[in-house]
């Protein structure tokens, strides 16, 4: 890193108001750490922020994926009128050590049952990728409900994450194979 280059890598947001989605991502990372999920993969740019968390203690989920997609309200005027909305997607991933074509067929049937589901507001949509089964739910959230509110915001975020992770966990539990 050359000196004098570092500032050029940031978006030069002059006020906290312009950084609400990053603030929320930070709170999510800390909240998940307190629940025993360690962030182990980041992909973040102006449009969307994705973080993958791993758990070594969860009996079903190997990973939880969180994606925050800022939709509205980044500017001063739009923020004042409609607030800061973002879609917050939470996906729980079951990883099996061994998979075979029968699993794929079984999971494909499960996918078909889910084909009309949108996975919104706590509903879970299931999908799979060979030895992974992923249950996902998406909410349109108001960022201010969770940030810059001290313990109240942290509590609301913790409750939201726990509820959504619990839902996806139960939806994909049937696909978790016992480790022999």
């Amino acid at each position, binding site marked *: 890193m050359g*000196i004098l280059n570092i500032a050029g890598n940031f978006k030069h*947001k*002059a006020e906290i108001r312009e950084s609400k989605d*990053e603030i929320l991502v930070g709170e999510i*990372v800390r909240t998940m750490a307190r629940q025993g999920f*360690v962030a182990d993969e980041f*992909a*973040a740019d102006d449009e969307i922020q994705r973080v993958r968390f791993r758990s070594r203690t969860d009996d079903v989920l190997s990973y939880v994926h969180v994606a925050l997609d800022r939709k509205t309200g980044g500017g001063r005027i739009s923020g004042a009128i409609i607030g800061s909305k973002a879609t917050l997607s939470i996906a729980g991933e079951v990883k099996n050590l061994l998979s075979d074509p029968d699993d794929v067929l079984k999971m494909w049937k499960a996918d078909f049952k889910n084909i009309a589901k949108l996975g919104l507001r706590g509903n879970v949509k299931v999908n799979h990728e060979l030895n992974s089964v992923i249950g996902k739910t998406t909410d349109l959230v108001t960022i201010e409900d969770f940030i*810059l509110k001290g313990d109240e915001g942290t509590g609301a975020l913790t409750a939201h994450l726990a509820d959504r992770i619990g839902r996806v966990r139960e939806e994909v539990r049937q696909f978790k194979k016992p480790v022999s």
Partner: protein
Amino acid sequence: MTSFYAAAPEGQAGPMSAEDLLAAVAEGRYPRNVPVWWPDAPDWVPLDTHPELSLRLEQAAPAPPPGTAEMPVPAAMPAPAPAREGVSDDELDRGFAALVKESWKHHNLVQDTTRVDDVLLGALITAGLDNGHVLIDLTSDGTNHFLRFEDPADRSRLTMAITHLTRSVTQARTIGQRASLVVGYGEPIKSFGKVLSAMRQEAKSGYLKRAEPGIVSFDADSASQYLYAQVDLYLDLDKYIDAELTPDYHALDRDVAATMHALRKFLHGRISD
């Protein structure tokens, strides 16, 4: 209307409507279990397993027309091969399971080696927030990560640019996990003249091009009117993250606090000149 593609014996055909597809089967051009695919389908699947079309297939043609070329179906599954003499089925199964487990161990080792910098990033965010900062910038392409925090109480900012240097297992095992870290501590400066004054010495020298450990330099972010003191460091990640990828938040917090404290002193010293 959904368009279908068929992997017919003479080659791939489509797109076509469900009606055309079913008609082709009824006319004997395609077997009932011809592999089909449609947008959103995860993979090619036999037509006679499609939940909706298989029903329509049954209704339209309850039995395959005589002479239709069905996909060959074995009369019966071959009997399982006998176990090796003196070795039971269970023992062979356990041997295979052990091989798979061992393979996962190697796979995870490679994955963990490349992900340790992301774990550091998450740990830095957690430690920063526990210290009363809020995260206001996050950019990451998987290898290069940029963080910026703000302390809402005094508006001071902390920036970090992290680059993972040992992304292969060989490198990580030879010298340990390493990352370069550029840390900046900034405060809002109302007078840009003061910023220029603070940076005059850097601008006059070739000092700017050298990025070696311990060199403290100053950088201005004119958009947000912040002046930063920053320093290049190299981190031994094994000191902060164990083999299970569990971070030591306390150790990280202590070292970040020490760096921030030093940079704050440098910045205040330069501004007061």
